[in-house]
């Protein structure tokens, strides 16, 4: 009886390793999920396009992650990744609260405040954290982001 339990547990353990491996994409497929084309706009703000300006993201988007990108666009956009399990873009369209307001006096800086009025939970099925000691994997893992903030070319984001 004991022997069969050990055999069953061993098979289950090896299977779980194999399953995690098979469920994981290769590096190229993984990176393809986070290219700009995979993000859809859920909020946009018209902004002046003259001069050099700065956008500060003043709130935390926890439990999500965001990355920033300068693009040839004429407004500031908040985009959501389409490849997240569940309808995150639909949820964000209904629930995302985003405000952009200029900092007075010079009006060269804008503060972007993002919040989620309803409680929201996000689980990241991550790999072994130890791989981050290598630059390659650290950069690879950092490509993952649920939100992307896109700004026009003359804007800096901090």
């Amino acid at each position: 009886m004991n022997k069969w339990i050990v055999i069953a547990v061993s098979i289950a353990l090896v299977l779980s390793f194999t399953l995690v491996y098979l469920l994981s994409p290769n590096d190229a497929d993984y990176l393809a999920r986070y290219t700009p084309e995979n993000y859809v706009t859920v909020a946009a703000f018209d902004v002046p396009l003259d001069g050099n300006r700065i956008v500060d993201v003043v709130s935390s988007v926890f439990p999500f992650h965001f990355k920033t990108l300068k693009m040839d666009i004429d407004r500031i956009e908040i985009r959501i990744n389409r490849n997240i399990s569940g309808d995150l873009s639909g949820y964000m369209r209904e629930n995302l609260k985003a405000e952009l307001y200029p900092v007075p006096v010079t009006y060269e800086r804008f503060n972007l405040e993002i919040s989620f009025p309803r409680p929201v939970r996000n689980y990241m099925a991550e790999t072994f954290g130890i791989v981050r000691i290598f630059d390659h994997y650290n950069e690879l893992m950092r490509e993952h982001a649920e939100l992307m903030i896109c700004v026009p070319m003359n804007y800096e984001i901090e």
Partner: protein
Amino acid sequence: MLSQNSRLRAMKSLLYSYYVDFKSFYGIYIGIMTGLLLSKLALSSSASGSSSLSAGLVNGMFMLPIAMIIITSNSELLKKFSFHVDRNMLVFSHIILILVLPVIMLLTSCGFHLLETLAAEIALTATGNFFYTWVITKDSFLVGFALSYIIMVCVGGITWMVFAWFYRHKIATSVVCGTFLLALIYLRNFRDAFLNLINLIVYSPSPGMLFLKFSAITLISFAVGYIPIKRMEVK
């Protein structure tokens, strides 16, 4: 031939006795992993944080040294000695434990990772405000598994070596370890040199090189730890 067979049988029975001992150890490991899984998905407001794979590594890095501290003690060692079991077999069985236990723990963490994902899928269909992302690639998973394994083996090997010496030569080992720790705390140059050495070991251009470095440290630990057990007196 007859002697070889009896040695093999003795080895099998020795390993079986360790298997019986380590059932409760494995139970504790599973208990901790279950607790972490439940607290993450049921109690945490974000369900983010390290997933089961990293949690398994950290958990194993704490539990494996504890197991090594226990198995190298005089009372535990003497319990294992019976006819045909000699010091070499004992050390060999310890090395097998140090090599096999991390694999079992890491494979278990893979199982918990799948359970976490299953729970996330269920939460995804049951509630509208839960989302999850799979941030693992084939490459990062394999490299992470191999590195986690060798780090656990290395930590287990070093602890085994230190406590193999400690239980046989308590005063001498305490003086050496105590001096080392005090020097690490109070002597800045020594601390810097030690941290540089750690950096030199950990900083590796490739995972394979890091794996080899940890393997070498493990082998040295096995060799050094073998000496006091080989010399120990068995009444």
